[in-house]
């Protein structure tokens, strides 16, 4: 069934009786060519590109809970390609290009909205660092604009320009950045993969990997053994636990990142705004809620909830940079588990176990990477060679010192 305005119109006069499930509810078959562990954004995108680009369709995606129950449904929905380092920026720009055609490709409106992102700077040193970054973006084919204070004031007049502890001096703007409806992304990929024949199996938790002579032969699950020779793991928030079943220790710590949404308000915030002197970023959803967040809490956690100091810290940051949001009210707060890698950049690579592939360590930046991560992971699983845009995301880069450390804080995951 193809989604379109005409179809919607037809259904609306016939009482919406013709809609089909967005995806089926199959049980696991005994054998698949490829099993993807993790029915979140990255896992579902991987399944979609495996079928669409690499012609693989005998695939299962196994998910321990409900589809999209992890970070794809808990993030603050920002998409952007404003990175500095050559290991990262081309990958995120590749992702941005996939976002730009995603809805037409999936026939599902994930509300990709390119309303721009501004990163504010407050010192000359920050401006210089953003200039270097903006140039890196342009040099890799992305878009970037350096705004001085006056241009910024015309664009976003409600920021605190005149009474600030750290006065705003300007901003780095990426006009093509924006937001996407997070759940819609998971559902759109799920529907497309399902239509291509991929089995999406919910409430099916992996409990072990079966190996023979160092090679994967299948996965044990709560719904029985599934035979396969290739397993792709994309389980943000559970990476260490799942890979430990294959005997691997990862350069990852899991932390909680809180996110917040306000009550619905009439249009207030034009795009995404990131404060450079405190921990605060904000956008506004199409429904009208201000979606905002800040830093991770800082301690290891699998609890999907955080504590009050960060709530206050984020609110202070928001009030400092845009004091007109004071009368907005926090409606809901929640937490997601971030698999923080030791250099702040992700891993998409083979593992020492033949047939076992790993995708993880996305820190708090996995959502924007969803299309490229799925594409590159599909490329790796299908061809056994890394995709060019993700070739730096090797597991052995830590041992060799080829780290991709955007923030320059070293092997201290809670600072990335």
């Amino acid at each position: 069934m193809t989604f379109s305005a005409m179809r919607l119109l037809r259904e609306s006069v016939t009482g919406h009786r013709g809609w089909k499930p967005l995806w089926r509810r199959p049980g696991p078959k005994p054998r698949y060519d490829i099993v993807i562990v993790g029915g979140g954004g990255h896992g579902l995108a991987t399944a979609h590109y495996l079928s669409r680009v690499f012609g693989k369709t005998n695939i299962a995606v196994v998910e321990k809970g409900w589809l999209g129950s992890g970070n794809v449904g808990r993030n603050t929905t920002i998409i952007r390609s404003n990175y500095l380092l050559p290991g990262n920026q081309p990958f995120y720009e590749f992702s941005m290009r996939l976002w730009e055609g995603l809805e037409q490709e999936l026939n599902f409106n994930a509300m990709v909205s390119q309303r721009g992102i501004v990163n504010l700077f407050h010192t000359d040193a920050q401006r210089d660092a953003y200039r270097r970054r903006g140039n890196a973006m342009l040099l890799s084919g992305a878009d970037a604009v350096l705004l001085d204070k006056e241009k910024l004031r015309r664009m976003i007049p409600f920021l605190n320009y005149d009474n600030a502890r750290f006065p705003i001096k300007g901003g780095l703007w990426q006009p093509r950045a924006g937001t996407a409806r997070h759940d819609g992304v998971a559902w759109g990929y799920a529907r497309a993969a399902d239509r291509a024949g991929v089995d999406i199996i919910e409430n099916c938790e992996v409990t072990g990997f079966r190996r023979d002579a160092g090679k994967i032969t299948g996965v044990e699950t709560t719904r029985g053994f599934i035979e396969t020779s290739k397993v792709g793991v994309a389980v943000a928030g559970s990476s260490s636990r799942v890979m430990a079943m294959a005997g691997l220790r990862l350069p990852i710590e899991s932390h909680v990142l809180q996110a917040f949404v306000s009550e619905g308000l009439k249009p207030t915030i034009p795009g995404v705004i990131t404060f450079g002197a405190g921990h605060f970023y904000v956008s506004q959803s199409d429904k009208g809620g201000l979606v905002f967040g800040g830093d991770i809490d800082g301690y290891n956690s699998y609890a999907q909830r955080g504590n009050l100091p960060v709530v206050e810290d984020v609110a202070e940051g928001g009030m400092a940079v845009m004091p007109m949001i004071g009368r907005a009210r926090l409606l809901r707060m929640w937490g997601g588990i971030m698999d923080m890698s030791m250099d702040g950049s992700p891993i998409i690579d083979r593992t020492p176990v033949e047939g076992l592939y790993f995708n993880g360590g996305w820190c708090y930046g996995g959502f924007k990477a969803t299309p490229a991560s799925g594409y590159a992971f599909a490329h790796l699983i299908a061809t056994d060679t890394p995709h060019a845009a993700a070739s730096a995301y090797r597991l052995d880069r830590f041992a060799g010192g080829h780290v991709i450390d955007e923030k320059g804080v070293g092997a201290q995951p809670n600072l990335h």
Partner: protein
Amino acid sequence: MLIPHPLLGPRDAREFTVMGDAGMIDRPDPAAPDAADRFYEYVYLRDNPAGVHRELWFHEYGDRSWLVVTRNTLTHEIVAVELASDVSAKREKSR
């Protein structure tokens, strides 16, 4: 969170900076033949358990002691707190 400091009693977590896995106390011997591998594991690899976790907290806005906090990462319950220097000294002795 409240951190039961072994010398000062319960202190608000706001007074602390967290560093992560208490394994950072066990710096490998740089003269060991496999020192490169051991330093790689020491600096980069983590057990990252979902459950009881021993981790380092620095009482930055307090008495500046480093603590080894044993805390459950699923519930945030704190099971034990020791001075890191005591933990480290004990380990030295047992070597």
